[in-house]
């Protein structure tokens, strides 16, 4: 229950930053916050309080945590970092052309 609550609060804070803030860098931060919320949920949901899913050599292990969501999360983190880097690069270029990274001001420049 606490997991769901933290996930939804984090996700909604990220979504709020994505749609309400006019600073483009804050939008990217909001997007990353939403990703972090989803990763947090997936990892905590699959946590059954078992061992880390790595065999210790020569020992019989107890119950493992599920390795599949962890591998999927690793994939997600890498993709998230790549997209964030690309978005920030686009913002750098936009700042060079328009002199601002504020969404509203860029819209005024277009008029």
């Amino acid at each position, binding site marked *: 229950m606490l997991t*769901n609550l933290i996930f939804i609060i984090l996700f909604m804070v990220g979504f709020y930053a994505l749609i309400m803030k006019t600073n483009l860098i804050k939008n990217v931060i909001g997007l990353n916050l939403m990703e972090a919320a989803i990763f947090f949920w997936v990892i905590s949901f699959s946590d059954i309080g078992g061992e880390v*899913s790595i*065999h210790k050599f020569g020992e019989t292990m107890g119950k493992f945590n599920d*390795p599949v969501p962890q*591998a999927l999360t690793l994939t997600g983190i*890498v993709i998230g970092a790549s997209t964030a880097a690309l978005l920030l690069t686009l913002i*750098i270029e936009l700042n060079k052309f328009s002199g601002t990274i504020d969404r509203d001001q860029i819209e005024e420049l277009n008029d």
Partner: protein
Amino acid sequence: MNKLVKKTLITAVLAAAAFALYYNFSLLPGYQDLEKGISDYIITYGLHDTGSLNLITAVLYDYRAFDSLGESTVIFGAVSGIVLILSRKMLPVSSKGLSFIVKRTLGIMTPFIALFGFYVITHGHLSPGGGFQGGVILAAISIIFSIVYGSAFDYRRYSPQTKTVLETGGALTFLVIGLAGIVMEGAFLKNLGFLTAERGTLISAGSIPYINIGVGFKVGAGLAIIFYSMIQKTFEEDF
């Protein structure tokens, strides 16, 4: 005033959506009640199938190796896009670096950071870690060079051409191992069984350590290229 109304309205809508989401999530079954055949299979037979003690690495580079190839292609695409967008700027910011004390301290520390990065990469199948994680540590070395010694030092010691070669080499290693899987085992990226040594040793788990090394160099060089492109300034601003 108009803005305040809009803000209040959107906050109310988001709060309602959050409540609806919370209600929906509380209807989900717990993890114990799920049907998880693939997880049980991997936990039971993962060590036997791949020889990798770290089951997460086994999933990433053996069961879902094709997906990891796509993932490293995404990094490659991001790096290519960033370099393409910022390509008109040739010279880096000529910062002087930090003070003498910081330079000497990091001169002593940097080899150990590199050693830790290589350790995390090469022991990806035995302990927590792997190519992606170790590659990020290696990329941190390039960032340390740029900040502490000035970006001209980084340019001389570890030039963009070297980084490009390392990144392409890592991607090619991955692909060549995948193609060797077709020739020797009959499927793309299938684990090369003849490379397997005794379990728990450094060179075990078939092709997983080699893929780890390739991915590690690729990620390290790729992130260093991203950082290096972002700190560049235009020609006119510097001179």
